[in-house]
């Protein structure tokens, strides 16, 4: 199946909570992915809305969609409608910052900062239309992936041989790589390797990666 295949369910779909595929469905998906990348249960989440998100978020339920996604709801889950109440029940504190000043590269952009004790993670997402999304930043590192494939996100130190280790290990486990991208904070410092694969990535594999001396965290996204 190639990237360009347009399925009948891309046309008759997605099944989603309204009212907008970009402002509601896409927002829920960004937050859902952010929650998958953040290992743990965030106690506090701050959403900073830019561009069109900042202008029309209330009438599109973008806020509820973001909270819903953060609670692990997918974009067709009606619980999104009452996401504020569900967040309170879950003990998750949420805050919205509306930033109409900062220029962003895409009109539907959100920064999500999740905190649990001393663990903090920033994810920047863009809702690019039709419910499709891109993750563009993890903490200080610019990244670019969609979550449309099985995705493994490996944070590691930028040391020679680390990527070779990661890919060899995948080949040994019969996982075919669709795309591989390495993003670096700076040469020799923190790096993130994002691999989209055709095959399911097991938790077991994730644990194996974590034993490597330069790998600091491993997250999986399976939509």
């Amino acid at each position, binding site marked *: 199946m190639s990237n360009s295949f347009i399925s009948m369910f891309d046309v*008759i779909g997605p099944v989603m909570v309204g*009212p907008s*595929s970009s402002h509601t469905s896409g927002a829920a998906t960004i937050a859902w992915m952010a929650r998958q990348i953040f290992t743990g249960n965030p106690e506090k989440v701050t959403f900073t809305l830019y561009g069109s998100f900042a202008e*029309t978020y209330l009438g599109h339920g973008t806020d509820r969609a973001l909270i819903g996604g953060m609670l692990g709801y997918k974009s067709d889950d*009606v619980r999104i409608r009452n996401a504020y109440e569900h967040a309170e029940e879950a003990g998750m504190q949420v805050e919205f910052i509306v930033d109409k000043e900062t220029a962003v590269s895409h009109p539907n952009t959100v920064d999500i900062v999740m905190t649990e004790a001393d663990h903090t993670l920033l994810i920047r997402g863009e809702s690019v239309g039709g419910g499709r999304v891109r993750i563009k930043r993890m903490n200080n590192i610019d990244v670019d992936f969609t979550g449309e494939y099985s995705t493994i996100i490996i944070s590691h130190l930028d040391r020679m041989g680390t990527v070779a280790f990661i890919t060899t290990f995948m080949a040994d486990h019969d996982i075919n790589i669709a795309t591989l991208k390495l993003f670096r904070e700076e040469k020799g410092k923190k790096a993130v390797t994002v691999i989209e694969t055709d095959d399911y990535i097991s938790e077991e594999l994730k644990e194996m990666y974590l034993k490597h001396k330069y790998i600091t965290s491993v997250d999986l996204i399976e939509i």
Partner: protein
Amino acid sequence: MNWDFKNAEELLQICSEQDMPVSEVMINREMQLGGVSREAIMERLDESLRVMNVAVDKAILDPVKSMGGLLGGEAAKVNALDEAKIVSGPVMHRAIMNALAVAETNASMGVIVAAPTAGSAGVLPAVLLSLYETRDLSVDTLRKGLINASAIGYIITRNGSVSGAEAGCQAEVGSAAAMAASAIVEMTGGTPEQCCNAASVALSNLLGLVCDPVRGLVEVPCQTRNAMGAACAYVSAEMALADVGINVPLDEMIQITYDVGRTLPESLRETAKGGCAVAPSLCNACSRDAALSRLKATM
């Protein structure tokens, strides 16, 4: 056998060679390129149809205010209309009601099937379900209608646009009307050529339709335009079934629609800076601050 087609011409060629309706070619394409079984496709289609049905019923039986506060209860009002005032006949009456209902469900954060978009999600349920109910068709015919519509929607997505921000409402409600028109033709025994003609006529009739959502919300005039899109589908299909049309092949009409869409000024492409979005009476009735405070009060 390669079941893929890039445009309407190739679709019609496969239909002719294989002596198959549009829906059967599309389902073969989906099985081949998507690597999925017919059963799996039917299951997903039934789920889509179920969601469409619930989206219609919910708004008629249990109406609620929309997120932006501009919609709520319109489908129920049409449902309560005196029989003597149902001027467009029972099928169109049902279609109008269904279209308004789905738009309400969508605008109140209910679950809908984007077809091809959330803003135009009312057109297909309006047409398919009204035809199904009033003509006592089989569920299988209903499924074929949905698959047929997806073939037309796919061709437009691939060669044109289904985005209001890119090409105006003609790309959203216009595309949905073209999809629905083609579906009606197959569901009532028309030929693949008539399907594509119906879609072409529907697009031509909505050519130039602007996207001008009040306050940028998917509410006004999106809701009533969905009902209009359903009417356009019926009108176009009936003409096509009688071999009345405009003799512009669907592929050409998709290109024309796309070209017109891209020449629309930015103010008329989902930016809420023109058209109904700047109607003085609408702007006065819901000035930004008043609307925001009302929204906050309901949260």
